[in-house]
């Protein structure tokens, strides 16, 4: 009796479990039927906006890559720009640039993609009070300063507006005719065309400008896909735009993104609910030992550099180059990566990512090799470290980074005998801006556009011989001269060489210690192939991805 009721219960459960499947038999895979080719991807952080002028994190940049077309696009291997919406981008003096557009492109709402559509996006981004994330990309444009207003900082650090911006449009940006734009820069910059493929330079439709908030949720793009629905924080879906006239469009017709916040999407990938995935550190070993999984894996160096900075504004011992070299040589980069972030980072021995952007070569940092003996010698040469004092290592609050920098600190302690104190602080950025560090601190640089120049100007150049740059207090005339020479170069290749020379100048000064470059890893499902990772952002190149079902 009992056995019978148990069997009945089991049968009932089986029915329930099979329940709403109703014909859910093998082969009933709807996703491959009727040309409905869907690619399912994860967004690993809370995407906050889809407005091109305001999108500056990997995820919304990744989404917008298939929603918008820019003037130029980047080669998947070399990251060199080539014209896409632009017919031609040229300049005789590298200061005034003429951009010719291909005619007849339209937005998904039918509006033309013309010179005015670029100008309206750029003016909106450059206008200071709009507070756009990509505002600073227009710093090189003539008329940028007039759009920022005048602010003043008092003793409490309070910033007040003294004067509203004088202009609402960039005076250096002119719409000549529907297919011609001219841009006047404040000085020669040969890398200008390289910037134009970045998200912040995409055009927007007039309808988008009229309803910025709506457009930030449901963009009116000009690319191969349009966003159907975005349930913010949960999921997003896009489908192919039937009237797309461009040539670069993938073979699938729907993309579904699931947003993940804090949790790992790896089991979802394993369960077949996602088409690409990467294991968390705890699962790294087992994933890489699985022959089936590793047969569908791509690895590519990423572009983000983690490095250690020093408060050069604080004086000795940080201003002593031998001290900085000692720290650099005392760190066994490979060992700490294997221990804390296996497969996610690669040791750095240069300030510009090698092979990731034009001009990037390995080995410019000769003292980035692990050599404890030379490190001790360098420390002795620098006069040693004050006895009984601890080296403070400051960083923002982040579990993975704390572990990583603890391992770095342990290496310094082990190989140099300098005791350290980890200082993870929520007000890290505020303190960095206020120059309040006394010790080493974490830095991370992710370039904005693929050019070696970008690794050098932002973090090190200031033109301020007295105070040095904001975060470090670094200044080198030879370095800045080389950068200026590069900006004035007649063509991009010459410029890249000049910037390389600037990096060599930087290596002589050794202001910071490069630790590691990010490494992008993706595993992919049997539904897709031709998975190419962007050497720049590390995300999957959606336009190259091929759906095989």
């Amino acid at each position, binding site marked *: 009796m009992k056995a019978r009721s148990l069997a009945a219960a089991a049968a009932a459960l089986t029915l*329930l*479990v*099979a*329940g*709403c*499947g109703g014909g*859910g*038999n*093998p082969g*009933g895979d709807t996703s491959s039927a009727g040309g409905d080719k869907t690619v399912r991807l994860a967004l690993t952080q*809370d995407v*906050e906006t889809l407005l091109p002028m305001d999108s*500056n994190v990997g995820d919304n940049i990744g989404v917008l890559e298939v929603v918008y077309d820019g003037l130029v696009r980047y080669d998947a291997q070399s990251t060199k720009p080539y014209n896409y919406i632009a017919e031609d981008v040229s300049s005789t003096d590298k200061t005034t640039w003429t951009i010719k557009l291909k005619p007849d492109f339209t937005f998904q709402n039918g509006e033309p993609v013309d010179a005015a559509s670029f100008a309206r996006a750029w003016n909106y981004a450059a206008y*200071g*009070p*709009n*507070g756009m*994330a990509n*505002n*600073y990309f227009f710093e090189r444009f003539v008329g940028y300063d007039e759009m*920022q*207003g005048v602010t003043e*900082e008092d003793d*409490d650090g*309070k*910033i007040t*507006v003294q004067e509203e911006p004088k202009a609402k449009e960039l005076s250096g940006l002119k719409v000549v005719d529907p297919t011609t734009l001219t841009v006047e820069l404040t000085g020669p910059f040969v890398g200008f065309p390289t910037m134009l493929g970045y998200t912040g330079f995409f055009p927007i439709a007039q309808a988008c400008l009229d309803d910025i*908030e709506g457009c930030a949720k449901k963009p009116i793009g000009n690319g191969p896909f349009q966003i159907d629905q975005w*349930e*913010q*924080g*949960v*999921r997003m879906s896009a489908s192919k735009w039937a009237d797309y006239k461009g040539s670069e469009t993938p073979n699938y017709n729907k993309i579904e993104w*699931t*947003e*993940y*916040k*804090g*949790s790992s*999407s790896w*089991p*979802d990938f*394993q*369960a*077949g*609910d996602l088409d690409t995935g990467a294991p968390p550190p*705890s*699962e790294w070993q087992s994933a890489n030992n699985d022959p089936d999984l590793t047969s569908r894996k791509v690895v590519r160096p990423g572009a983000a550099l983690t490095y250690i900075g020093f408060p050069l504004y604080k004086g000795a011992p940080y201003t002593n180059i031998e001290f900085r070299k000692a720290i650099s040589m005392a760190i066994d980069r490979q060992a700490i990566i294997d221990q804390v972030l296996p497969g996610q980072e690669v040791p750095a021995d240069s300030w510009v990512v090698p092979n990731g952007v034009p001009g990037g070569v390995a080995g410019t940092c000769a003292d980035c090799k692990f050599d404890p003996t030379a490190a001790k010698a360098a420390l002795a040469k620098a006069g040693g470290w004050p006895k009984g004092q601890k080296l403070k290592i400051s960083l923002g609050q982040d579990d993975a980074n704390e572990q990583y920098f603890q391992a770095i600190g342990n290496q310094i302690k082990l190989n140099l005998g300098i005791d350290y104190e980890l200082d993870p602080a*929520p*007000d890290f*950025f*505020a*303190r*960095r*801006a206020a120059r309040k560090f006394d010790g080493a601190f974490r*830095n*991370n*640089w*992710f370039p904005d556009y693929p050019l070696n120049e970008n690794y050098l100007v932002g973090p090190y150049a200031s033109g301020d011989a007295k105070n040095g740059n904001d*975060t470090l207090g670094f200044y080198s005339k030879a370095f800045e001269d080389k950068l200026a020479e590069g900006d004035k170069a007649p063509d991009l290749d010459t410029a890249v060489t000049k910037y390389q020379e600037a990096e060599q100048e930087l290596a002589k000064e050794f202001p910071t210690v490069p630790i590691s470059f990010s490494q992008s890893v993706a595993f992919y499902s049997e539904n897709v192939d031709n998975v190419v990772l962007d050497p720049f952002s590390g995300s999957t190149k959606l336009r190259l991805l091929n759906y095989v079902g």
Partner: protein
Amino acid sequence: MQGVFTLFAVMLLLHLLTTLAIQLNGNPALAFFGDRAPSKSQLEAVEKRFGLDDVCYDQIGNPCLAQFGKRLGDYATGDFGTDLRGRAVTDIVATAAPNTLRLFLVVTITWLIMGMFLGSVAARFRGKAPDHGIRLISILIDAFPVFVMLLVYKFIFTVPISGWMADTFGKDSLGALLFKPSFSRDAPWATIIVPGLLLGLTGAAPFLRLVRASQLENYNADHVRTARSKGLGERHVTLFHIVRNSSIPVVTAVGFVFAEALAGAVITEGMMNIYGMGGVLWGAVQDSQVSVVIGMVSLLSIITIVVMFAVDILYAVLDPRIRYD
């Protein structure tokens, strides 16, 4: 009236705490720029956009009461503000609340079934094998914190089980959905059952012991002996004289444990990728998003007050001696 006052006090306290957090931790607007150092006018523009440009946020110890007053005024007109990037708090709540309520529903049902059923069985067979077994289970549950259970479940069990279910019964069968590694918006009920069950389990152990203890008290009570001596059947006695009478402390506990479940919800939502109140609140606190924190907590306070009210009403239903005028 008291509820309204409590709500006001909670909001004021939260306002003061988040304001202090901003003053101490530095400007959340700086985080907007990541590793890049913004120019002063860029920072100013973003501060303004985030509503952080008031001078009081730069003075440590300033309670920023003017901001609080403004917020209350906005609430009165039905404007609950936005998060730092301009998304309306009401929109966030509308997306997050249903998922959390689903989770709470599953949790509560798990408590009631596990607690009431197993607790009653343990009391009924006091000192016998079922009693020992059930008490052992309750100790085992205590030994596994919810995050360990979820971690093991998610990384070890979901993939093989959901894969097997999908192969056997089909990709969209209930079985395959039940064991999905993450919450799915397409099947919001099916994919929340197991996480809810696991979260409910952890709360069920103390609950179960409470039920057992309060029923044991009743087994020897005078009114039960009277009922038995009247010749009532054992089933009738258990259901109407023991279970019902021992339900009052149990219902009280539901009210309290409910508030505690929110803490578990933060973990469960984070692990199972459920976009819910716990996870959103957690993120908002980390980012010093004043309006989101206060909006969410106000809403949760209201839910808690409603649950407490329901508990009060249940008292009267369960015990005819309690009457509200």
